[in-house]
C-alpha cells in the first residue's frame, strides 16, 4: 500500500514543483514505483520541469471525468524506471475536480504505487483543497522569508484542521552566506515559529534553474548542491519506513547542516 504525500506551501514560487520533480525522480532512482500528480490546473508546469510536456495526451480531469482510463493518462518516464506523471489540464477550470474525486483517485493509485507525490498549487482555495484531499502526509515548503514562513504557518494550520498531522518542513533556497551575515532567517528561527519537524534544507543553487530548463531534475546531478540536498531528503523519506535508520539519517543530516550553515550550538 503506497503513501500519498502532498507538497504544498501557501506562497507561490517557493519550490513546490521543483521539490516534487526531484523527490519523485530520487525515489524512482532508488527503485520505487512513483507517480507525480500535477494539481495546478490551468498553470501546470511539472511536465515541463520533468521534460515530459510533449508526451501529454490525457490529463487529470480526463481521468476524473472518465474520458480515458487511469493507465492511459499516466506518462511513463522512460529515463527512470517506475516514474510516472499525471499532468494537469491547462485549459480547464479548478472546479472541474472535487476533493472527493481526488481522494478516490489517490486511493486507487495507492494500490499500485509506492509513492504518490502531489504538486499543490499556491494558495488556500479549491486547488489546495483538492490537492490535500487524498494525502496521508504533507511536506510544507518555505523559503527563508518572513512572508513565505507566514504562509507556511497558515498552511500547517489548515493541514492540521484537515487531519493531516505532523507535516514536515523543507526550507528551500537557503543562502548560507546571507544567514551568516544575519540577512536571512536562520533555519532555527523558522523551526522556532513553525514548530514542525524539518526533513531537509535545500540551498539556493543555480543548477536548479539549469536543470529545470533541461527537464532533468537536479537530484541526478552528482555535482549539484541542491541535488545532494534532494538526495538526502529522498533517503530520509524512505527511512520513515525504517524508524532506526530514520533517526541516524536525521541526526547526520542535521549536524552536517548545522556546520554548513555556521550555526551557534545553543
Amino acid at each position, binding site marked *: 500500500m503506497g503513501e500519498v504525500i502532498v507538497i504544498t506551501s501557501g506562497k507561490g514560487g517557493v519550490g513546490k514543483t521543483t521539490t516534487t520533480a526531484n523527490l519523485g525522480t530520487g525515489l524512482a532512482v532508488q527503485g520505487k514505483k512513483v507517480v507525480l500528480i500535477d494539481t495546478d490546473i490551468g498553470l501546470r508546469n511539472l511536465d515541463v520541469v520533468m521534460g515530459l510536456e510533449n508526451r501529454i495526451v490525457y490529463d487529470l480531469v480526463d481521468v476524473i471525468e472518465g474520458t480515458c482510463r487511469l493507465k492511459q493518462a499516466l506518462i511513463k518516464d522512460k529515463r527512470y524506471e517506475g516514474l510516472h506523471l499525471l499532468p494537469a489540464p491547462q485549459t480547464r477550470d479548478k472546479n472541474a475536480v472535487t476533493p472527493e474525486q481526488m481522494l478516490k483517485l489517490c486511493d486507487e493509485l495507492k494500490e499500485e504505487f509506492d509513492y504518490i507525490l502531489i504538486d499543490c498549487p499556491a494558495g488556500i482555495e479549491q486547488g489546495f483543497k483538492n490537492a490535500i484531499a487524498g494525502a496521508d502526509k504533507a511536506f510544507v515548503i518555505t523559503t527563508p522569508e518572513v512572508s513565505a514562513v507566514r*504562509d507556511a*504557518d*497558515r498552511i500547517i*494550520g489548515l493541514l492540521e484542521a484537515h487531519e493531516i498531522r505532523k507535516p514536515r518542513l523543507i526550507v528551500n533556497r537557503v543562502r548560507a552566506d546571507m544567514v551568516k551575515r544575519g540577512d536571512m532567517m536562520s533555519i532555527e528561527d523558522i523551526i*522556532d*515559529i513553525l514548530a514542525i519537524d524539518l526533513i531537509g534544507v535545500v540551498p539556493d543553487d543555480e543548477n536548479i534553474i539549469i536543470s529545470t530548463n533541461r527537464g532533468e531534475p537536479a537530484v541526478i546531478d552528482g555535482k549539484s548542491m541542491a541535488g545532494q540536498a534532494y538526495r538526502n531528503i529522498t533517503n530520509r523519506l524512505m527511512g520513515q519506513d525504517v524508524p532506526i535508520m530514520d533517526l541516524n539519517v536525521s541526526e547526520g543530516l542535521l549536524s552536517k547542516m548545522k556546520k554548513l550553515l555556521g550555526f551557534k550550538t545553543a
Partner: protein
Amino acid sequence: MEQETKVVFKGNSEGLVIVIPEEYEFEQARKEIDNKVSNAARFFMGAKIKVTYRGMNLTPVQEEALKDIMDEKSGAVIESFSKDEEPKPNQFAARVVQPKPVPGRRLLFAGVDEGNCKFVRSTVRSGMRIEYDGNVVVIGDVNPGGEIVATGNVVVLGTLRGMVHAGADGNREAFIYALSLRPTQIRIAEVIARMPEDEPESGTLRPELATVKDNSIVVEQR
C-alpha cells in the same frame, strides 16, 4: 425558597450595566435591583459610577425610581442612570457578572480574578482567531497572523508573536502574560500597543506581563 433572579449586573469601563430581560415586570426588576445593591453595598461604597441598563424599556419615572434605589442603598454616588445603546453585533455576548464585595476595590469585573477560562492546547497559527468570553490560556505559541480576543486575561505559555486583545469588552483590569512577549500588537480594553521593531528575538525566555497603567500598556518582567 429563593426566587430565580433574572436581572444581571455587569461591569464595563464606564461603570455598571444592568441587564433587565426585555419582557419583565418592572416591580420584579425593582425588587431584584434593590436586593442586589443592598447586598453589595460594601462593594459600591464611596464609588462614583455611571449606570446604564439594557433590555427592558423604562419610562422616565421608572428610571428615576431605580436611580433613587441605587443612590440610597448602594452607598455609591450614581452620576447618571440611562439606557445603554444596543451592543454592536460583533461584540461579545453579555458577560454575566455578579458584583461581590472585595475590600480595597471600587469596581470589580469578576472574571479577571476568577472566572471562565478556555485552554488552547496547540499553536495558534497564522489565520487562526480565537474569541472567548472569559480568560484564555494558550499552551503553545501564538504566531504572527494569529489572533486571540478575550474579554478576560490572556496567558501564553510560549512565545506570543501574533495579536492579542485582552479585556476586549472594555475591561482595563485584564492582563496579558507570555513566557516570551514579542507580539505584532497587543490590546487591553481600548488601549493599543505595539512592540519596538528592532528588538531582536532572544533565545532565552523572558516572561513578561502587560497591564494598563495611566492609559497606556506597560510591560514588566515577571
